[in-house]
């Protein structure tokens, strides 16, 4: 990570619209040049607000935003030279595709020939050659989205912001466009700050993902790290499926702790230092739990009762009562066919302490 230039930096940024509720709280975030960073989070968690502050349409209530090291607090949106793609495209309906793309160039007083050339290049980039003369109303949703992207890129900004640009498209088109956007970003090497509340989209496209929850960043990390090494319960459950168990630390040995969940003692990997008696949240992915393992293979082995089974084709989802949880889900590959387990069966499950992550409970940070 080091060695690259920091392109965008949020430092201690707060934002409140009404003077009472902070919708963005103490935000610290760095985006490197050429990086594809996604802001991911549930609705109302403050993603758009961050983007709007970066673009200059909203002022932070506190803190500093820097672009290439310079604070942009006093710079109006039009001088920030940031490309923006809006959820509903925001193409100018009274201008043709060509005129839409020429708009930022004309504002910058680029001479005629240069405009034509750049518009053509931008259209080629989004694979819409020959569409100059059409009105936005005469294009499909996907085509309009491509035009919007081309328009945000045609004046060669080094930073592009996209606020749920694929929200209005159907699933097939969305997947295709995810690929397209990624391709274009790689080709041009621009920095992209991308907003979505779709975790799959975030995982598929981003270099790093910043997970937002109630105005705070829970964790910033590459997708695979977020999945494998969530640092908070919120991240653990928001990205993919996870089982959460709640307990207190009985003993610690290097990175591994023993935690009492009330009914059982579970060995888990300590993500953050915890002492004896501290409360912890344990997170175990459903696909990392083995059903009826050879005895002694895992240091975590428990008796469980099967409450419910869902047949999902390539795998089964089995809901269990175990370790004080009545909602413990495991996923087993459908290698033996339907009927491997039955409801009300008593079974054994096992998992390694490395797959069971002991996290600081979310409530504790809220208080701090």
């Amino acid at each position, binding site marked *: 990570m080091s060695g690259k230039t920091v392109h965008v930096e949020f430092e201690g940024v707060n934002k409140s619209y009404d003077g009472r509720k902070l919708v963005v709280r103490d935000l610290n975030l760095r985006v490197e040049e050429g990086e594809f960073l996604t802001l991911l989070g549930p609705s109302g968690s403050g993603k758009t*607000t961050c983007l709007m502050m970066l*673009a200059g349409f909203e002022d932070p209530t506190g803190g500093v935003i820097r672009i290439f090291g310079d604070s942009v607090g006093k710079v109006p949106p039009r001088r920030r030279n940031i490309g*923006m793609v809006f959820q*509903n495209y925001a193409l100018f309906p009274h201008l043709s595709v060509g005129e839409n793309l020429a708009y930022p160039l004309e*504002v910058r007083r680029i001479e005629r020939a240069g405009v034509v050339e750049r518009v053509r290049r931008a259209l080629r980039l989004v694979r819409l050659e020959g569409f100059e003369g059409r*009105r936005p109303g005469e294009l499909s949703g996907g085509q309009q989205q491509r035009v919007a992207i081309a328009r945000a890129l045609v004046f060669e900004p080094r930073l592009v912001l996209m606020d749920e640009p694929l929200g209005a498209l159907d699933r097939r088109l969305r997947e295709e466009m995810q690929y397209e956007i990624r391709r274009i970003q790689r080709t041009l090497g621009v920095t992209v700050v991308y907003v979505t509340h779709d975790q799959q989209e975030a995982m598929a496209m981003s270099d790093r993902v910043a997970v937002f929850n109630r105005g705070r960043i829970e964790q910033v990390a590459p997708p695979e790290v977020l999945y494998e090494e969530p640092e908070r319960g919120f991240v653990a459950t928001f990205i993919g499926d996870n089982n959460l168990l709640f307990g207190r630390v009985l003993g610690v040995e290097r990175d591994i702790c023993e935690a009492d969940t009330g009914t059982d003692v579970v060995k888990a990997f300590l993500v953050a230092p915890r002492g004896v008696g501290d409360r912890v949240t344990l997170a175990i992915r459903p696909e990392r739990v083995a059903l009826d393992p050879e005895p002694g293979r895992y240091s975590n082995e428990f008796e469980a009762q099967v409450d419910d089974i869902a047949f999902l084709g390539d795998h089964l989802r089995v809901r269990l009562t175990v370790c004080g949880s009545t909602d413990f889900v495991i996923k087993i590959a459908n290698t033996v066919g339907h009927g491997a387990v039955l409801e009300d069966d008593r079974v054994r499950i096992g998992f390694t302490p490395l797959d069971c992550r002991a996290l600081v409970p979310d409530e504790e940070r809220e208080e701090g």
Partner: protein
Amino acid sequence: MGRLLHVAFCAAVFVFLVAPILVIVPLSFNAEPYFTFTDGMLRLDADAWSLRWYEAVAGDGEWRRALVNSLVIGVSATVLATVLGVLAALGLASPAMPGRAVVMSVVISPMVTPVIVAAAGMFFFYSSIGLAQTHLGLILAHAALGTPFVVITVTATLAGFNHDLTRAAASLGAGPWYAFRSVQLPLVLPGIVSGALFAFATSFDEVVTVLFMGGVEQRTVPREMWAGVREQISPAILAVATFLIAFALLLMGLVQWLRGRGSGSEPAARDAATA
């Protein structure tokens, strides 16, 4: 059966709506000074038809002066009403506008107040400040009566305007004035022009304030029509009426055409948070 009855009923209503207006047109070509179809006209006798009433009107200094008055008053009142109405609509469209409902009722009031009451009040007040029997007085009066139309039309257009477009323009490097001129104005212009046409039509058809406040110098086309219907009834009026019908159809066509163009702006479907 029921459906047939329904359609027949509606056809009758449409005839009721449109036929009386159309009847005037052929009668205005009557060669005789009558208000009804002569036998000659019905036989399509060329002699029974003539342009004499059009010639009479065109050659009549009073009608010409009336037309000039109507245009001068109408255009001035329209410009005034449009400028003030558009500014106000921009303010009213802002979500930050406090007391919106009250302001709106005040602004709309000239449209629903009986024009006789308005004209009486204007007569009292404008006489007391020396504006009765002046063009300026009538321009102000007509502008007041026309503003509600401008405000209603433009507010409706602005409500359909997607404010992300303005943000998009700013993000592409346009200053506020350039963004307004190149994006917002062209998109709301059809609404503004429609409103202006409504205001003009209102002034061009207004007779009560002219009756109360206008002197001999301010007689407008409807004022002459009024006199024509009340006093020296002559088919010349029908020639003027035909002209006015053509004019009304022109205005109506323009407004419809503008409406078709104005719908270009996409619905503001963004979540309230980003709006």
